[in-house]
């Protein structure tokens, strides 16, 4: 099945990705954000927070946004 994945980490991108049936949001995060902690990100499915065992459905919109972004001096 296909979902829309919006990754606001790094350079950020929004793209459709194919995932296996019954993939939970926790598993999806582990695959896409290797080495990262869920606590450092705001995870939304269809604009709403979901429990980590939420099973993703076809056409879902997943947004992952870091809660800590280092600013700089311009």
């Amino acid at each position, binding site marked *: 099945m296909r979902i829309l994945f919006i990754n606001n980490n790094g350079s950020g991108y*929004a793209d459709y990705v194919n995932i296996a049936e019954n993939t939970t949001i926790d598993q999806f995060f582990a695959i896409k954000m290797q080495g990262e902690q869920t606590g450092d990100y705001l995870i939304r499915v269809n604009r709403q927070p979901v429990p980590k065992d939420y099973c993703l459905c076809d056409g879902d919109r997943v947004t992952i946004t870091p809660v800590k972004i*280092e600013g700089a001096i311009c």
Partner: protein
Amino acid sequence: MRKEKIMKKYKNIVRLSNLLLEALCELKRQRLRQIQSSFEDFSYKCCDATKDSHLFYAAIEKGWLSGAEKVISRVSRNLNDFSYHLQRFKELINADETKLPKLSDVFAELSQIDQELGEYQFDLKERTISVITEPITLDDIPFGPFEIKLFIDQINKLYTDSPFRVIALEPNPAGADDNVTHPHVSSERLCEGDGHVSIRRSLEQGRFCDFFTMIVSVLQTYNPDSPYISLDDWEGISCYDCGCTVSGDDCYYCESCDRDYCSQCSTYCQMCDTTLCLGCAYECPSCNEPVCQSCTAKCKDCEEVFCKDCLTEDGLCQSCEEQRKEDSDEEQASESKKPETCVAVQSNSVGETIVHA
């Protein structure tokens, strides 16, 4: 009555969504114009790569083989440049995958902002949409809440300027610079650092909730490697001369130029004890001590400036005083010789003659 209120709010959200969508369309147009200009440049490059074909043809026809070889090496060089321009052009074309959101998407974004970041402010006259953050504290230093104000009419300038401002509502600016209200905010402009690309991309794609959320994330994070003013120096004052930050107790205020200096860049008047910066202090050429302007005076003879301690009661410096003394001694000496010669001349009547009437 309640229904009317809800309808009014709903209408406002639709109006705002339309405005935002129009701004995104304009941004897209700007982007396409950029591609259009690159398109024209690329056409010229294509012409450049093949411009010598007629020379090559002529050289072959006339049997000028070395001339033809020269043309080939020139074409080869041109092709190297051409492949570079082709690659750049391909990148530019492929990078423009931004699809404009639908009105319903923008509407949903605004509802999400309401849910996640609290009620946003929409100023139709100013054409801005604002979100107010929670009070922000970094390393126990409170910065108060910030207003993130997005200027809708400036979204189309995204590639050249920042279309939003970050305004401190209860400012606690750095001691060294009132314009710095957060380690990463100067003159209401946020330096997004690591978030630069993703924040801009979210705006391009009309993901307004992500846009505001990421700005809040930058405001809630301190990057000690690259702040405008580090949190360690936040309460301090910057020396106007050398720029180093010093605490309030180690700061010296120059009463002459009204600026703050560190201990290395300040001194005091040796006569009246007024604090001065090194630039305003005057070093007396006689005693070499620093003094303030009001404790100096010009020597009446040489007009050089000295501290008042180094001038005599008559307003003379030491060397002019000595000079005057020497002059007066000489004068006295010459005056004491004068009467003798006069008497001798008159008594002898030398050079006098009788004039008949």
